[in-house]
């Protein structure tokens, strides 16, 4: 599974954002995902993938930034 698909799945589970509107260029704040909502999204992705991204992942501003973090941990195609 590609990082974008994983993120889209996580967004679909946690928000009312239509996953098909989520692209690598999408800004998280424009999607309505603030730093607090991002915590829950990352937790959800971690649970889904059975991984721990750690507490030093920074604050990605775009979906691409989040994809990069996931790819780094999972050796996925970004």
């Amino acid at each position, binding site marked *: 599974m590609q990082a974008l698909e994983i993120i889209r799945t996580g967004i679909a589970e946690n928000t*009312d954002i239509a996953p098909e509107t989520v692209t690598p260029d999408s800004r998280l704040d424009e999607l309505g995902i603030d730093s607090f909502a991002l915590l829950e999204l990352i937790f959800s992705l971690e649970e889904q993938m059975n991984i721990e991204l750690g507490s030093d992942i920074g604050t990605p501003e775009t979906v691409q930034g989040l994809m990069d973090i996931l790819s780094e941990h999972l050796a996925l195609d970004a």
Partner: protein
Amino acid sequence: MREHHHRERVVVTGLSILDPFGGDSNAVMDRLLAGQSSVRLLDYGDESTGGQTPAVYFDPIDFEKRLGKATCRSTDPFARLALLAADEAWTHAGLPSTTEIDPRAGVNWGTALGGINTLEDGYRGLWKEGRKRLSPMSVVMGMSNAASAQVGMRYGLGGQAVTHSVACASAAIAIGDAYERIRDGHMDLMLAGGSDMPLAFGVLRAWDAMHMLAPGDKSSAHRACRPFHPDRRGLVLAEGAACLVLESLSRAQARGAPILAEITGFGASNDANHVVRPQKDGQVRAIRQALSEAEFPLESIGYVNAHGTATTEGDAVEVSALREVFGDQLAAKLPVSATKAAHGHAMGATGAIEAAITVMALQRKQLPPTAYLDEVDPACEGVDHIRERPRDVTGIVAALSNSFAFGGSNAVLAFARPNGC
């Protein structure tokens, strides 16, 4: 009477009651008037540790559909129920949807157990299922003020968002305090209510240990809670929520709001005596305070929605308190019912449920009965029990709603039919 520099009249312009059997507050009232119970037998826990008890519980609610996923991911069910109750009351009051923050509007919310289901899920996950982590939303879901915070955000209530946790009197005190905030000129509009989802496994076990839950099986569960009855065996725990919209009379009139009733008094006292054994004297003080503030003659009180939880001691003490305040002659003609027989005991929400019922009783001039009260315990005699069937009352002016909590806190709300407003 207390002195006030500022004194606004306070009116109820909207209300809601959430009940598992569905429908709006009028549908709930129709069922209460018909003496229909919402109590069913609940299976709880698992095969080895679980049990059965009569309770009032919701079938799964599609919260995501009504509140959105993002809100549901960050809220405990007690806060989601609060949002649904607030939505219904807000709409009922004819208030517009708004994104503006109003510094003259606020919310007071009652809850006895707050985010207990989030806490229990967390403990179960950590201790039983061996999970190492909890959702980062756990803190904001579990905190007791989550409901008032969520309601405040939804409606831009910028004046205050306060949580009252006073066991069974939580919502009554939330409403009473909201009334005083408007009366004294600090606020113009308050949402005041309560919500609780007390059917967590540990909560059921804790109540069970006190031997205060009414027994029942599948065929008898609906009539398990029997206030004032000689065979009463205790209370029935309930999930529930209710909300009142309170406004200053001037604000309500300025926007042409429907005026359902006026709050004319709030009495609060503390037994300061025993953690579970109610005291007549404390209840008398609260009732008298509510009445004195209302400045009504005793004769004008045409209904009392009793606290009436169906405990042996509590029901008798409440009747004795009413007899002392009203005197035996007037008390004998005072219509009283305990609607918990039908809607159960929703803990921190119950004061709001009963306040809403009292308002609707005044509006409709119809008093709900104590369901299944086919016989009155001699220890509970001395008032005019409304038994089994509803009662039409043409000349009713005012009514009281009593809430007496574990811990000894007492709250009495006085309502009147709109007069000159």
